[in-house]
């Protein structure tokens, strides 16, 4: 321990910049592998996509090897694309239905239910909690096929229930495809909102409720006046998070309906994929992807503003 006992000599006064670099050198090296991977698979592709959106690059053929610069042609085409309006509308319905209404509201409701049940000490509480989590950690492909079975017209469990109570069968994926994919996405994603809300509910001090109870406020009153205002900030964050993650949903819809029937469940992500890989138009597909990224950056910026993460 001799080294510890000696006083550390004061650092010699040298040019500050140089010493700062020496202090941080090791950390810059430590960040390098991650930076390379991120540049390779995130930043690079985003920039490349931006570039490709100004060309007529194709998947195969002459334009694959020698793409031509077409300027804003692809962006002009966006406005004339008859399918694009449908696709945007579908994305909007899907996001509003499954993220904002579904996951957000159901997540809050489940959090309140579980928080209440936990305080009461009901035995089944952990089971219900686990069931919601189970749907969430389930790989997407399994979720897709499980629900293909649930929705099956002749034998599916949903229609079995309907016939049991005397209602006619519904051709879920054929006649109500958007509703069906929304239900599955809510099933899959609600756990996230629920977990965050549960965490937030636990930080509301009990004294507030006690005081309100003494003042004679009923359960509904206490909820509106105290629970909801305390959740406001976290609610905005949850809303933005689930919106962003739902906006990028691809695999689930692809497994369930593949955008069909017709293009009733075609969302932006699927449309970009179809254009690039089925229509062989990399240039135009990239343009759609750029629009998608722009929308996402807008949401993310608001998210960062609101959450103000500690850096």
């Amino acid at each position, binding site marked *: 321990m001799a080294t510890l006992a000696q006083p550390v000599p004061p650092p010699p006064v040298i040019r500050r910049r140089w010493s700062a670099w020496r202090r941080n050198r090791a950390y810059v090296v430590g960040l390098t592998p991650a930076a390379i*991977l991120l540049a390779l698979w*995130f930043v690079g592709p985003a920039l490349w996509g931006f570039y490709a959106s100004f060309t007529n690059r194709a998947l195969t053929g002459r334009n694959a090897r020698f793409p031509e610069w077409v300027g804003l042609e692809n962006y002009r085409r966006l406005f004339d694309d008859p399918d694009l309006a449908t696709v945007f509308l579908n994305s909007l319905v899907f996001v509003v239905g499954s993220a904002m209404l579904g996951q957000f509201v159901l997540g809050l409701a489940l959090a309140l239910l579980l928080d209440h049940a936990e305080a009461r000490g009901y035995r089944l509480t952990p089971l*219900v909690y686990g069931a919601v989590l189970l749907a969430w950690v389930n790989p997407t492909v399994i979720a897709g*096929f499980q629900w293909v079975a649930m929705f099956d017209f002749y034998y599916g469990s949903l229609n079995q229930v309907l016939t049991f109570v005397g209602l006619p069968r519904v051709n879920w994926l054929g006649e109500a495809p958007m509703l069906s994919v929304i239900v599955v996405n809510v099933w899959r994603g609600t756990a*996230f909102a629920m977990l965050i809300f549960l965490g937030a509910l636990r*930080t509301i001090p009990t004294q507030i409720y006690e005081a309100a109870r003494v003042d004679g406020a009923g359960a509904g009153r206490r909820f509106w006046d105290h629970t909801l205002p305390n959740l406001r900030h976290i609610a905005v964050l949850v809303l933005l998070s689930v919106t*962003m993650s739902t906006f*990028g949903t691809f695999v689930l819809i692809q497994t369930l309906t593949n955008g069909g029937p017709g293009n009733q469940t075609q969302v932006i992500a699927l449309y970009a994929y179809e254009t690039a890989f089925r229509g062989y138009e990399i240039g135009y597909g990239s343009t759609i*992807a750029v629009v998608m990224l722009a929308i996402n950056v807008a949401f993310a910026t608001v998210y*960062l503003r609101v959450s103000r993460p500690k850096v």
Partner: protein
Amino acid sequence: MAVRAAPATAVDTRAVPAARTVARRRARPGVVEWVLVHLAFAIVLAFFLAPFLWMGLAAFDPQASAYIRIPERLTLDNFRVVFADYAFGTALKNSLIVSTATMALTVLTVSLAGYSLSRIAIKRKNWISYSILLLQTMPLSATMVPIYGLARELNLRNSYLGLILVHTAIELPFLTWMMKGFFDAVPRYLEEAAWIDGRSKLRAWFEVVLPVARPGIGVAAGLAFLSAWAEVLMVLILVNRDEYLTVPFAFYRAARGEGSYLEVRYELVAAMGVLYVLPVLALFFATRKLMVRGLMGTTRGL
């Protein structure tokens, strides 16, 4: 003493639930309330568990269909068919190789990057942090077209290396951010003492700091494995040769598409599902508390 609002930290979160449970229990639970809560429980359980109930039963049912029924006779034939006729063994092997390697590479990269980000002292440090968070929200489905082009240029299609690299990258932003949090909590005097003892920064990190951050590394490893295990999109665009396909694609084999309608061999899908979900369940429920904390940060679409 300055009168300031107490920071909402450990004091609040830890003390409150206990105090609350006592306070709430004092109110007498009515029968009506009990019935209502359990009615809600029943609905929630039915909604969330029905698909799993179907899968678990159908996997062992020789005549499985889309509805939930208890098999008249239990069989393992479905599993045998899956391995014999649908190359499920190869798919399982590929998934295992890719996920394990992704896990190793991710843990190495994010523990280095998270520590460096935690300790680096430069002017625009928050810019780095913000851009990492921004990357984290970028939907993969928006960049998959250029990723495909890039992988083709670099000859990384149809290879384990390509899949491993891309799966690692997918998890990097979030896990780096998470590991930074874990390293922020490790007191600096630990490594400073090691430096004074004459260890290099790398050795101090490896021998002194890493052992303290072990729970964080565990979570990062688990999450990296799970995400690579469940990932479909990148495999979809990076692989078109059978010998590199991962498990999700075995599912599509068991389903024949006709227009927008699927004709599915349900008993096979269920058997595959059971095998595919087992490692996830084991990993997740074994480390539930830690994982939940980690997973809450994922905001990317799947």
